[in-house]
């Protein structure tokens, strides 16, 4: 259950971050969504054996982290939590790939290359997704989705689920805290108490859901959801999208790190 509570804190953190007012936050949500998608597509479109060119894609997250004042540590922690799955899959590549390459005189399976490639891609893509929500937030994202003509009911359902998750988890953590204060030697909840614990939680959360529904109803809610005005995309936003997309495309075509390396080694020589 602590898993649940940690996740709650994580969501709260991202929600807080999303409310900052840095230049990145002010960029139109739809533009950020599209930029993220271009980024993802470019990163993912790299072949199995690419690593070098991938590295220039590190610029995007780094710059966003800095300009949007997002703390790096908690986000990276999140990314690392997702990596094990990828490691599990990727680690088989060295086993299965029977081609070998020469790496500084050592013969290793080519699978290590693909493994590293997948590892980096995973890190980049996950960071991009989280940065999107950290700089946009749920309600602005909803506006962006509506501009993409995503149906209202879907957006409403999304927002409600988001809102209720925090509500539900708050109830749980409150009850667990109350319990643990009265059962100091217990780790977790003892099974004999499960029934009443459960019963309490349900009644409370249910009642809340019912009341929220009523309050929505009393304010004229009839099943339709109105997000209000859709913000216009300004020149600044277009420039953002165009600029990044150009960078991504160039990085995809040219192996920038290698070029830099060649430049430097050329100069040294």
């Amino acid at each position, binding site marked *: 259950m602590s898993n649940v509570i940690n996740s709650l804190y994580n969501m709260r953190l991202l929600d807080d971050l999303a409310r900052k007012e840095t230049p990145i936050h002010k960029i139109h949500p739809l533009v950020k969504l599209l930029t993220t998608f271009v980024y993802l597509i470019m990163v993912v479109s790299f072949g199995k054996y690419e690593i070098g060119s991938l590295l220039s894609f590190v610029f995007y997250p780094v710059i966003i982290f800095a300009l949007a004042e997002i703390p790096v540590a908690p986000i990276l922690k999140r990314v690392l939590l997702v990596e094990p799955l990828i490691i599990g899959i990727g680690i088989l590549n060295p086993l299965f790939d029977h081609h070998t390459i020469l790496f500084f005189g050592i013969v290793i399976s080519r699978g290590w290359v693909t493994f590293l490639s997948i590892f980096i891609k995973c890190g980049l893509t996950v960071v991009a997704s989280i940065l999107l929500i950290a700089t946009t937030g749920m309600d602005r994202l909803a506006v962006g989705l509506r501009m993409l003509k995503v149906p209202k009911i879907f957006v409403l359902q999304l927002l*409600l689920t988001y809102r209720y998750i925090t509500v539900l988890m708050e109830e749980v953590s409150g009850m667990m805290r109350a319990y643990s204060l009265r059962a100091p030697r217990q780790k977790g909840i003892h099974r004999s108490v499960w029934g009443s614990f459960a019963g309490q939680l349900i009644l409370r959360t249910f009642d809340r859901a019912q009341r929220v529904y009523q309050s929505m109803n009393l304010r*004229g809610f009839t099943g339709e959801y109105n997000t209000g005005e859709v913000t216009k995309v300004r020149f600044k936003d277009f420039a953002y999208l165009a600029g990044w997309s150009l960078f991504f495309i160039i990085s995809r075509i040219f192996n920038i790190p290698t070029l830099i390396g060649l430049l430097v080694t050329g100069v040294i020589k």
Partner: protein
Amino acid sequence: MSHHKLEVRDLHFSYPDKYEAVKNISFTIHHGESVGIIGANGAGKSTLLMLLMGVLFPDDGEVLVGDIHVTKKTLPMIRQRLGMVFQDPNDQLFMTTVYDDVAFGPRNYKLDEKEVEIQVAKALKLVGISHLKDRAPFKLSGGEKRSAAIASVLSMQPDVLIMDEPTAALDPKSRRRVMSLLKRFEHTKIITSHDLDMVLETCKRVIVIKDGKVAADGITSEILTNVRLLDDCGLEMPLSLQNCPICGASKE
């Protein structure tokens, strides 16, 4: 359409488990009145509010707002006239910013977004939380949440404000703020509360509910000094009146 009064005639209501919550309640509230509805826990106050809002429908009797009966068909119209503020502001603030919560009502009535903005700004100003408009609800203090919840109802410009325990769980300053807010409003106000001192200050008229029936209906200063009546209905005198040096009324 006259919005001169809110009338309740011979209301009867029982819950599905056969519990009779409201037995034969009648009263009329006129435009601009501020009425406190008090009673012990379980007396039927909340049920009465639900019946007024059309959340529940009576088994017998009727509710009239202006001249319109409250029925399923007339609900949308009725709900535009009546605004209800819940006891727990968390139930009322379900959007992700205060602005969106306050705008929820007007948007549902299909107002043009520019209109919505004006209404929201007005409501926020009335309640004094214009500076909180972009805040997330879970970051507000109890008093601020309460104010935001009130604003979310005011933005629909109702004629009648119904409030369930508006000062519950508020610190003294916030409570004072809410009370001065209420005193400033010109709407017709119906307030349920256990905070009898607040009722004394803000409501000119009081209806006492006991066991689903109206036990008393009259001027606040008369009812809230009637020790016997209050005691009978499971209540006490407002704290500010107890041990009164003038009339000598005491707690016992």
